[in-house]
Each structure stands twice: as C-alpha cells, then as structure tokens.
C-alpha cells in the first residue's frame, strides 16, 4: 500500500453542515436532560417553600429516585441488549420474602439469608435468559410468565410458613450482622453532624433524638444506586462487553456473525437485572424491618418507563445509563414533589403516561436523525 492517504475530507456538497448544537442534541440523554431541568424549574417555582429543597426534603425524593434508579439501571442494559424483563417487580417481592423467611422464620444468620436471596435471584435471572434464548420466544412473554410465577410463589411461601403475607422482625434479626449494614446502613454520619453544627442542616429540637441532625447520613440505598449507575455506564460505554451489549440489541444475527457471543451477553443481562431487583429488595427489607409478599408491584413498568425517558429504544441497540438514571430522578422528584406541592397524587399517573408518550415520540425522532431514515 503506497497510496497517499488524503487527510482532508472531501466535502460532499449534498451534505449540510451539521451544527455543533444539533450534534450535541443527537444523544440518547437529551430528552431526560431537558425533562430534569423542566421538572426542577417547575418545582422550584411551585413548591419552593414547602421544604422540598431542605435537607430532609432532598433526602426524601433522593431515596425514592435512588430506588427507581437501581432497577432502571438493570432494565436499561437489558433493553439495550434487546430484551425486557417484566418480572422485576415480582422478583423484588420474592427476594424480600426469601431474606425474611431465611433469617426470621428459619433462624439463619442475616448474611446467609442475603447471600441466598442473591444466589436464587441470579439463578432465576439465568433461567429467564436461558428460556428466552432456547425457545426464541419474545422476552415479553417469558418474563410475563415469571411475573405471575414469582408473585404466586412469594405469597404461597409466606402464607404456608407463617400464615401472614408480611414477615416482620427483620431488624432484630439483622442486629450485629456484618452484611446487613451494606444494604440498610448509612454513611457519612460525621459529615452530617458537622453540617448540622454549622447550621447548614437542621437539628431535632425535641423528642428522644433532640440535638441530632435531621438527616444523619446517606442511606446505602443511594450509595448502591450511585455505584450501579457508574458501573453500568462505564461497562456500557468504555468496555468490550459494552460494545457486545449494543451489538446484541442492534442486530443479534449480524453480531453473532461477527463473533459476538450474543446468547451469553443476553443471559448475563437478565442476571444483572435480577441482581438489581434483589439489591432493591434487600435495601427495602432492611429499611422497613419487614418483608411483604406484595412489594415491588408495578416496579417493572416504572423501571422500563425510566429507561425509555432516558432515551433507550424499545427495539434495543440504543440507550444510555445516565439517561435512565435521569429518568429515575424525574420519576422520584415528581412523585414526591406533587406531595410537597399539595397536588392530588393521582395526577402523578397522568403525568407518567404523558411523559412516557412524549419521550417515545422524541426518541423516534432522534433515531431518525442518527440512522438517516426518512
């Protein structure tokens, strides 16, 4: 090859210069960035004096957003890999009951209960993925089946062993356990005491916690959300495996012709989704001190909506973890913000449906631009 490689690109007179602005716009996160700004502006105007933006207020919607984010991260990678998991909500209830049954009812140490729940969840995630791959059925149907199977098993297991659908006493069982604080603890207590001493955040003035800061640390739930977001974002955008996730969802056949182990990628993503659901369940069980068979209802749809608001395409192959996290933030802020703003909470669902529709329309438009479809 002795050809001269020309470094200056030839201009094609039929291609319009794409402005920097337009280029910056063509990214999956666009819709969720706009949405986040809009939502914050709205609530700053409407609910500014309601305490929504005080330390307790921020912690309030921060926790709800983090809950959404944890399951959205899993759903996001899975959706980019071209599949859905509708069993996320049932998995949350199931994992919670597994932990409570193992620790409270059967008396195992808490760490054994938690590890068992994760192992069982990963196995079910594997089964979900394996069935989808082997049968070639849409993941929609396979995981819909598991939505019912897991929920039914959860209620059955709780009733059959304890005659109740809520199992309490988890907090006592977690006392002194080494693994439980990883999900139920808080960090940076000292920082918040210091901030309270400075007067940045308030202190309780009465009651048995008088003198303590009203917010006494960052819950592990939020830490988990942050870790999962960073991990998934780097995995997706910076690694070989991330490229395989995009390729598997973009066109599974073309990907496998190029040597991408599509089946392995998809099964691992089903397992990751189950893992995220179990992180959610464990944090929730530790926080409430109990497990209930009906926990996690409708969570699968909330996860999928967060991901779609975040700019992922339902058809797979395109999306962003940061977008999904912002989608979860929008979700949390609006759900709690309506409460602060004294708006009837049923309107939340109206908002949900509306923003979902807007997001999908915007995504379709963005896809047309990037793929050059007309």
């Amino acid at each position, binding site marked *: *090859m002795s*050809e001269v*490689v*020309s*470094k*200056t*690109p*030839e201009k094609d007179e039929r291609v319009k210069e794409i402005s920097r602005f337009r280029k910056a716009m063509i990214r999956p996160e666009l819709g969720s960035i706009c949405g986040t700004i809009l939502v914050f502006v709205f609530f700053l105007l409407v609910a500014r004096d309601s305490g929504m933006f005080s330390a307790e207020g921020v912690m309030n919607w921060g926790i709800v957003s983090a809950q959404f984010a944890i399951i959205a991260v899993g759903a996001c990678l899975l959706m980019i890999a071209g599949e859905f998991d509708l069993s996320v909500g049932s998995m949350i209830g199931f994992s919670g009951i597994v932990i409570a049954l193992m620790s409270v009812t059967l008396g195992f140490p808490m760490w054994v209960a938690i590890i068992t729940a994760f192992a069982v969840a990963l196995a079910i995630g594997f089964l979900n993925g394996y069935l989808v791959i082997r049968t070639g059925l849409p993941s929609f149907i396979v995981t819909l089946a598991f939505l019912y199977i897991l929920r039914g098993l959860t209620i059955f297991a709780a009733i059959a062993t304890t005659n109740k659908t809520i199992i309490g006493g988890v907090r006592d069982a977690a006392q002194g356990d080494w693994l439980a604080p990883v999900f139920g603890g808080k960090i940076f207590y000292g920082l918040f005491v210091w901030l309270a001493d400075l007067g940045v955040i308030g202190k309780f003035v009465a009651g048995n916690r008088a003198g303590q800061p009203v917010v006494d640390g960052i819950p592990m739930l939020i830490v988990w959300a942050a870790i999962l977001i960073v991990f998934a974002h*780097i995995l997706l955008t*910076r*690694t*070989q495996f*991330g*490229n*395989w996730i*995009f*390729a598997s969802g*973009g*066109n599974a*056949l*073309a*990907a*496998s*012709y*190029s*040597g*991408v182990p599509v089946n392995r990628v998809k099964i691992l993503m089903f397992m990751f989704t189950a893992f995220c659901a179990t992180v959610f369940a464990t944090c929730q069980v530790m926080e409430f001190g109990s497990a209930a068979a009906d926990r996690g209802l409708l969570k699968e749809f909330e996860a999928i909506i967060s991901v779609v608001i975040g700019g992922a*395409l339902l058809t797979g*192959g*395109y999306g962003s973890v940061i977008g999904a996290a912002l989608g979860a933030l929008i979700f949390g802020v609006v759900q709690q913000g309506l409460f602060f703003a004294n708006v009837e909470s049923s309107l939340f669902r109206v908002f949900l449906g509306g923003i979902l529709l807007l997001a999908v329309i915007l995504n379709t438009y963005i*896809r047309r631009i*990037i*793929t*050059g*479809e007309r």
Partner: protein
Amino acid sequence: MSDPLIELRDIEKHFGSVIALAGVSLTVFPGECHCLLGDNGAGKSTFIKTMSGVHKPTKGTIHMGGKEVNFTSARDAIEAGIATVYQDLAMIPLMSVTRNFWMGREPKKKVGPFSFMDFDKANSVTMEEMARMGINLREPDQAVGTLSGGERQTVAIARAVHFGAKVLILDEPTSALGVRQTSNVLATIDKVRKKGIGVVFISHNVRHAMAVGDRFTVLNRGQTLGTAKRGEISPEELQELMAGGQELAELEGSLGGTV
C-alpha cells in the same frame, strides 16, 4: 498460477428431501476476483454459507493450503481467514462506524485490574482504513445509519481486510446500490484483489461481474455449468447460462443482450 487459497470439491447439500447443491466445485486463487453467478434459487446462498462455515456440506470436501478443513461454525471459517460480507447483515445502523468496525474483536487496554476498550486506537485505525478505501468519514463515532449503502459495504470490506481475511466473500454487494455507489464498491473490490486477497463476488448482474471478474462460475439449479476465464466468454453467453438458456431467449432483442 500459484496454489489456490481455497478449493471446494463436489459440494452437495441436502435439506431434507430438497437437494440445494448437487456437486459444486470452485477454486479461488490469491488476487483473483471469482464471480459466482446465478439466478434466484440457483443455490448461491447455500453455497457461500457452506464456504463460510454456516452450513456443513452433506457431501464433498473443502481444502485450504493443500489440507482438508472442516468448519463446524462461522467462527472456524473466520479464523481460517474466510470473511463473509452479507448484504443486509454487514453492519448495525444504530452503532458508530468504530463500534461496528471492531465488533467482536475490540482492542483493549488495561487500567489496573480493569480492561477497557481502547477507543483512541480503535478510532484512528478505523479512520485510516476507511481513508485507504477512499471513504473520508466526518468522524469515527458517526452512526453507520448515516452512511450510504455503498459506504456500509465498504466499511464491512475494510473490516474484513484489516482483520487478515485471505478469502473475502461478498454476497450481492451491489444489488441494492445505485450506479455511483456500485462503481465505488467495484473499485474497492479491485483494491482488495490487488492486495492478494481472493475475492468471491456473488451477483446476478452480469455487467457488475464483467466489470471486475477474472473468472466466472455459473450456478443453475444447484449445479455448476462450468468456470470460464475473462475474455473466454461474452456477457450474452453468461446471461444465457444463468437463465438456463430458456425463457430469456425471446426477450433478448428488446433487452439488448444483458439484463
């Protein structure tokens, strides 16, 4: 002439009671463009899928470098140096050119215990290889969907060449393209051939085949009707062989010889 890169002898492929290939033989030499012509249903697709390891032949043998080889998967064939560019499965439109180019063979760099994709290297190599094929990308992270059909084929060909393909199979690379794009792809085939790579060019368009082909093999109803060298056969004769010398005869006059 030097030794053939790949030699397929009396390949038969049966799907249940259907005989898709009934003894097809073909050789590919380094630096030649071997055109495989045939009408729809002639067995072209089955034949190249056998060659690229997707199908196992029912009968017949495949030899590479004088030794018999047995491909059990597409992966085997790729590792042996047989790269296939499928018409509609070459690229994933939603992914960037770089991500497509390296798909399945991503360059990695280590940072501590973690292994990341080396985007600096990936981007610069992609730009370089594309420029070599005569396509100047605006940027390596533009989506493949923004490229024209011919450019997509070229990315796929450049990728195959970069990863050391010895035999490059092109499945109807020009069938969905316009005139300008077709000539670009044909020019790319010429560049690839000059590197000593053996090109198998599948087409049902005699003009495209005549433009770059060194040898021509015609398939009809699962059988070879012989291989001809360039200059030994006219476009009209090729055309007739493809059609099995039948229905087209009456239209010959009004079509001006070739379709």
